[in-house]
């Protein structure tokens, strides 16, 4: 059956005409989120002076202050079943994802697949995914400290000195080992993005979470690697696949515990072993 939305009893999830995933909570009134892929063009300089440094393995240095949208020329497919509902979205030839809602779970899984990053235009690119909500986070967000406690970050601010950022995007990026959170104090709501690996992340606008998922750059940044961050395999750029879990909830101790448990559960997944049993029936095996 051809359907244009999914999300079980909890969410209404669809894709708009520009290829953004649009989510609305059925249970929690007023919660809306869009998710999209964008990219930064990496600065390419000669590294002779500070202002002419390239974006590379050590430094994230976009030459623009806003991420660029992808031209959406892809397609969407939705699959529904008793255990999982999936939305397969192809944004372009090298950016796609699967959005999943498992029966009985409140997290929304974004399984992204990015690469090989197209650099035929000779421009290095750094790909991000952005979760945009209507939460009023007041310039604040939280990132974990190597999987341990959450540290409060404030946009364009540092705790102990007056800051004037010359690079407003990179200067607001922080390490995210497992979790990044925005909260709306007035509405007592919270949005957490759980990652499956360490990534860079920020919140450049209120209610927004941005995570960098893949990078391919054509110039060395002169910090000692002496190689551009341009890894290839099979003669082309690398493909990266990973997962973000998004959870919404009230800004309560109970939800924070749930967030923690989910992060642990996703980080310590079971080890899967396969044993072929071609000539053994179930009863014999049992």
């Amino acid at each position: 059956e051809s359907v244009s939305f999914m999300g079980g009893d909890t969410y209404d999830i669809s894709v708009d005409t520009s290829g953004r995933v649009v989510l609305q909570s059925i249970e929690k009134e007023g919660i809306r989120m869009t998710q999209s892929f964008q990219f930064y063009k990496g600065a390419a300089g000669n590294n002779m002076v500070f202002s002419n440094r390239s974006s590379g393995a050590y430094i994230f240095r976009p030459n623009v202050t806003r991420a660029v949208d992808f031209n959406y020329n892809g397609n969407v497919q939705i699959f529904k079943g008793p255990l999982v509902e999936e939305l397969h979205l192809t944004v372009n030839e090298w950016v796609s994802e699967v959005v999943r809602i498992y029966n009985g779970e409140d997290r929304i899984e974004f399984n992204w697949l990015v690469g090989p990053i197209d650099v035929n235009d000779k421009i290095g690119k750094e790909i991000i995914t952005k979760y945009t909500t209507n939460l009023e986070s007041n310039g604040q967000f939280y990132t974990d400290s190597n999987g341990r406690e959450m540290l409060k970050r404030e946009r364009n601010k540092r705790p102990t000195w007056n800051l004037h950022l010359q690079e407003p995007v990179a200067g607001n990026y922080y390490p995210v080992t497992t979790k990044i959170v925005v909260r709306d104090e007035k509405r007592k709501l919270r949005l957490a993005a759980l990652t499956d690996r360490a990534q860079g992340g920020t919140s450049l606008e209120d209610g927004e979470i941005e995570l960098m998922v893949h990078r391919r750059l054509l110039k060395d940044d002169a910090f000692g690697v002496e190689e551009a961050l341009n890894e290839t395999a099979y003669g082309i750029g690398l493909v990266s696949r990973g997962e973000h879990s998004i959870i919404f909830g009230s800004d309560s101790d109970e939800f924070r515990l749930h967030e923690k448990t989910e992060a642990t559960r996703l980080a310590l997944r079971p080890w899967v072993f396969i044993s072929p049993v071609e000539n053994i029936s179930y009863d014999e095996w049992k």
Partner: protein
Amino acid sequence: EKINKFREAMGIMQHHDAVTGTEKQHVANDYSRILSNSMRDGNKLSADALRNMMKKDENTEKKVEFHSCLQLNISSCEHTENNKNFVVTLYNPGSQPLSTYVRLPVKGASYRVKDYLGMELVTQLVPIPATVSKIPGRQSSAVFDLVFLALSIPALGYQSFYISEKTQESEIQSDEPVND
């Protein structure tokens, strides 16, 4: 000896270059080699440990094989794709019981999953996206992900599931009325 090699590999991977990817390419390749070898040795060790926990079958000398699929992240696993009957064992490394959805790449059109009590579980087959099938270097004949819910895997313990591909013949048999 095997666990020491794994421990050493994990130590090396804590170097800041390995964490952030600021190493030279040939170093990155070496890290992959070290980690991959350690995972392989770790798998042997875990398989031995699981074998020790299992009930011994006195009728057969044959050891049960336990294979890890290190490419499950790109929906590829030769052991689930090329076998019509296989057992999936999930080891829970956490200190709390765990319930989790399991996804396995398969090429058949219908599967039956039974737990150790003989209960048949609800399953779902979801197509593997074409974009995943086209990942360079991915060699897989899987067209679906087989999904089922594994309930209550004990803390620091394991649970196994018997999976068999449903043939047309077995489906016809299962539709027959059951006699008392």
